[in-house]
């Protein structure tokens, strides 16, 4: 096998992984942008999205539905449920803490994360469950066949579409404008008539929806889930969000991709033993030279 081919394989492997990180990282970065909270329970929302999809797909499958119909129904339901969970979590664990000391919501988030993990563990199972492959299969042209699989192509394309959609939503709609206003200055936004509570809820809903899409895509791709998958994915996505500049939407996307590539190339050309070491070392390096992340704006300190 040629060197170039190997390079491309590693490159696309990183791209796939990075797309998933980016989808989850968007949830972190949006929430952070609006209320400056590291939402540690976000990884759990991703997991719940995947679990809901598994359950819905299981029920539909037992009714004898064809594959594409299952996908068409499962994905929206998973997205709706994950959003509902994100919305509810915000109302219970973060909203009462709006005016609390800065770190209190963080601890509340850690507690929520423990709670949700064990909720799934108790209500469903601790075991790994096989996840049906919902992604459409199609034949790829020969020259990419050995490098990419169809599910990887689907993941990358879906992620790109979703992110493009999100960017235009934030940029062009009224609600998007309200979100940007709230992110810049909550009090001022309130003064000019933005319903801040609504904006925050919407942020959680959108972030959760993206996480659920990521959850369904990756679970279909690797074919298994359990109650703990949210934790590692969450930490990595959070890293990606900070890498790109937390609070910045394009930053989260770029951060996800950079992290995915770093890990992939570290494994491919050095050793997977130190895959995470490379990821974190890159993070430290970037932050030392750009303390607000790759695309983050260094905000001036308020006196």
């Amino acid at each position: 096998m040629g060197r170039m081919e190997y390079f491309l394989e590693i490159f696309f492997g990183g791209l796939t992984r990075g797309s998933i990180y980016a989808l989850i990282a968007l949830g972190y970065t949006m929430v952070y942008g609006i209320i400056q909270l590291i939402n540690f329970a976000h990884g759990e929302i991703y997991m719940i999205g995947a679990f809901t999809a598994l359950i819905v797909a299981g029920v539909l499958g037992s009714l004898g539905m064809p594959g594409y119909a299952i996908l068409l129904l499962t994905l929206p339901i998973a997205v709706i449920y994950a959003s509902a969970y994100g919305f509810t979590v915000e109302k219970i664990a973060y909203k009462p803490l709006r005016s609390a000391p800065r770190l209190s919501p963080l601890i509340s988030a850690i507690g929520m994360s423990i709670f949700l993990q064990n909720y799934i563990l108790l209500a469903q199972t601790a075991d790994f469950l096989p996840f049906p492959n919902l992604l459409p299969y199609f034949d790829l042209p020969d020259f990419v066949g050995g490098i990419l699989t169809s599910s990887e192509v689907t993941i990358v394309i879906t992620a790109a579409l979703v992110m493009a959609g999100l960017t235009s939503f934030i940029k062009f709609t009224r609600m998007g404008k309200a979100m940007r206003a709230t992110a810049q200055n909550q009090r001022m936004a309130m003064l000019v008539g933005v319903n801040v509570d609504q904006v925050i809820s919407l942020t959680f809903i959108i972030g959760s929806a993206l996480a659920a899409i990521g959850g369904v895509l990756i679970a279909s791709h690797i074919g298994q889930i359990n109650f703990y998958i949210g934790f590692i994915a969450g930490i990595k996505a959070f890293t990606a969000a900070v890498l790109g500049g937390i609070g910045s939407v394009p930053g989260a996307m770029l951060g996800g991709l950079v992290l995915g590539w770093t890990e992939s190339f570290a494994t491919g050309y050095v050793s997977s033993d130190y895959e995470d070491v490379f990821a974190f070392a890159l993070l430290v390096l970037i932050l030392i030279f750009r303390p607000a992340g790759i695309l983050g704006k260094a905000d001036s300190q308020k006196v």
Partner: protein
Amino acid sequence: MQGLKKSLLTAVWFMFLTFPIMVIRVNTIEKTIVWRWENLALVGISVFLLSYVWRFLMSRRERGNKQNAFATDDRAQAFRALIEDRRIRYSLIAAFAIFVGVFPFLFSMYQVNIMISALIYIMLGLGLNIVVGLAGLLDLGFVAFYAVGAYAYALLNLHFGLGFWAVLPMAAVLGAFVGILLGFPVLRLRGDYLAIVTLGFGEIIRLVLENWGTFTRGPSGISNIPRPDLFGLEFGLQGRIIYMYYVVLALVLFTIAVVTRLKYSRIGRAWMALREDEIACQAMGIDKTQTKLMAFSLGATWAAMAGVVFAAKTSFINPASFTFLESAMILSIVVLGGMGSTVGVILGALILILLPEYLRAFAEYRMIVFGAIMVLFMVFRPQGLIRDRRLKRRFHPAESSKGAEAVPTGEGMARGAGSHG
């Protein structure tokens, strides 16, 4: 009536929310589905009832907030007056000291053992309190220094046969050194960027311990680490545990003494000033980098010492004990107890470490209850169990003369400690 409607709506919402997870269980291989409708009813009824409790507590919280802003609670004041009385105060302190002193003889080995764990976490909490509570630097990788201490003892003992008492000061110095080493590049960062970088460092240290097998024995860990000895005396298991308890207790007392001194010293004040406003602080002529580094390395010192104690206590360590979750736990201790407050951190550690142990009675529901309690604690007491006293004193200007005694001695300490910064 309004309440009933709200509760009904909440119940319906949660029934919808938990429906797929609680009711359906699918087996995707055999394509069988189990429907557990009884769970739906359970969720509905319990959420309905809980929503009343929630609203009641919420309204109490609101009221409490309003009251606190203007006047202090009568009961609290009466209580305060009671314990301000010297005789009552000293007898309470004496009673507590006696209780702590005879603890191992009153309770089973299990109780003593988990109390040792709690004491170790008090040390860790107090150490992190310097970094997070006083200096306001969010550190999510505190466990790295804990690991450094634990591995220092385990490895030095393994290769050179050094004992607990020899390693303890060495680990403290090593901890401070590593703290400076890691602190130096990252202190330029602010707030949550610092948090993620420290998290990264924590993970890097754990991964190195895991992968560098020839040096650290990798994931299989190091076993047979000796407990501390007392002039070479041999006790049975019970004796060793009790002795361990007193050793850790002494270390905790030492920690409390030093941390309290530090807090009221010049450097302590600088930390708190830095936490409140960095720019004003620099304008006042405080060396930002040096002050931050001091906080970082002092915190690391205690973590490393706690690590030595931990290795001695469990007699076995492996990298799995030093995950990010551990850092999160220590941070929770500090925040839940009340940032900056020593007594708060002690209470936080006792609750967060002992609670899961006493929740063992709930068996499989242990961790879900623990998570829920963490959330509820924060929602209903966001400032932590005990608010740092300094903050309070703003409202009681009359008492502010008392704490000031500590300052002169504290200053000397700060200079002494400053020399390795």
